[in-house]
């Protein structure tokens, strides 16, 4: 009787353990040390891009010749007043939510150095 009970307990334990392992394998999300990957996210379906008019420019500009200015990266100069000129005006003088880059600095471009050069 005792042997039978032991066997049944062991079988039940094994079943529970394997079920948990299977569940981890299938879901595989959000748990430190779990097997899966957390990188993939679907977004809400069906948004569109609308019409990008002629002034709707999203890319960087070309690299400018203001390297010395760019090296001046002190945060003290990032006040709203300093950025007004560089920003070309913002909502009729409304202070932006962000700290604009100081006046006199042009927006930098992307890296221009080629790999291996």
């Amino acid at each position, binding site marked *: 009787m005792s042997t039978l009970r032991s066997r049944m307990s062991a079988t039940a334990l094994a079943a529970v353990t394997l079920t948990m*392992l299977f569940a981890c394998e299938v879901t595989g999300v959000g748990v430190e040390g779990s097997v*899966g990957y957390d990188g993939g996210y679907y977004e809400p379906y069906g948004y569109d891009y609308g019409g*990008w*008019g002629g002034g709707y420019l*999203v890319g960087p500009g*070309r690299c400018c010749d203001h390297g010395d200015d760019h090296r001046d990266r002190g945060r003290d100069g990032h006040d709203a007043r300093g950025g007004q000129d560089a920003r070309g005006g913002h909502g009729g003088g409304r202070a932006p939510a*962000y700290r604009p880059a100081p006046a006199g600095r042009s927006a*930098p471009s992307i890296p221009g150095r080629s790999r291996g050069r």
Partner: protein
Amino acid sequence: MLRRILISVLVFAGCTSMAGAADFELPALNTPPSTEHHQGKIVWADLVTPDLAAAEKFYGALFGWTFHRIRAGSSDYAVAMLDGRPIGGMMEKPIPAGERRQSAWLTFMAVGDVEGVKRAATAHGAKVLADSRSYPMRGRQCVLSDPEGAVFAILASSSGDSPDYLPVSGEWIWSSLHAKDAGAEAAFYQELFGYDVFELPSDDGSEHLILSNDNYARASANSLASGSTRRHPHWLNFVRVDHTAETASKVIAMGGRVLVEPRVDRHGGMVAVVADPAGAPFGLMEWTDSDTKVEPK
């Protein structure tokens, strides 16, 4: 007897779990590893798609990417390689029957401290979509949505961040955020990454901001285009191409769509927005080396 069985089961369980985890190893961002770090630089992108084989075929033919498959729990994951370097990942994730989901590329930004940036993000209105987690060789990462709901990820690479080179054709070259309030969103990302924010002149009534650090432009933040009827804030990543119009034609020939027709952008080259056959949007951008002038460094 029971104890022996119990121990055997636990040992088996442990071995199975470890073997499964060992199967899924994202490649290091840099080989050999470096100590280089660029806070806020966009260093990786992950595609989520319902058909990984179709995505491999499409992106392989379009950009010359090759793929290395690894297992990710119940799904498959493919590392996209260009010239032997890992440049992104693609994950197959089934879409439940009856549901419609938007396949998309997830943008990863470099951080030094995932937990610290996560705390700052949530304090400023972000939500955690996938909590921080470490991956062998890769580092620690966390997936978030910003205050407007645009999804992004942060990554503390254990092998350092990619050096600042001009991307070659077929590599990611640029990222743009499209949001309802570009200024407020720029402020949010500035808090996280310390970006310098430049507002650029615009004659279309939209706000266009350049986010930079290390004296390099890293991304732009833009008002959603006024003509868009279904407006969902999102990040959009651009691949460098030699000919935008030709590449857009190939996209159509391979079952994709053109969302924004090829057009000249700020740098003087052509850009376009296209979607792969599963609907995931991404950008195309021409960039000529000869036009890049003096380096600030």
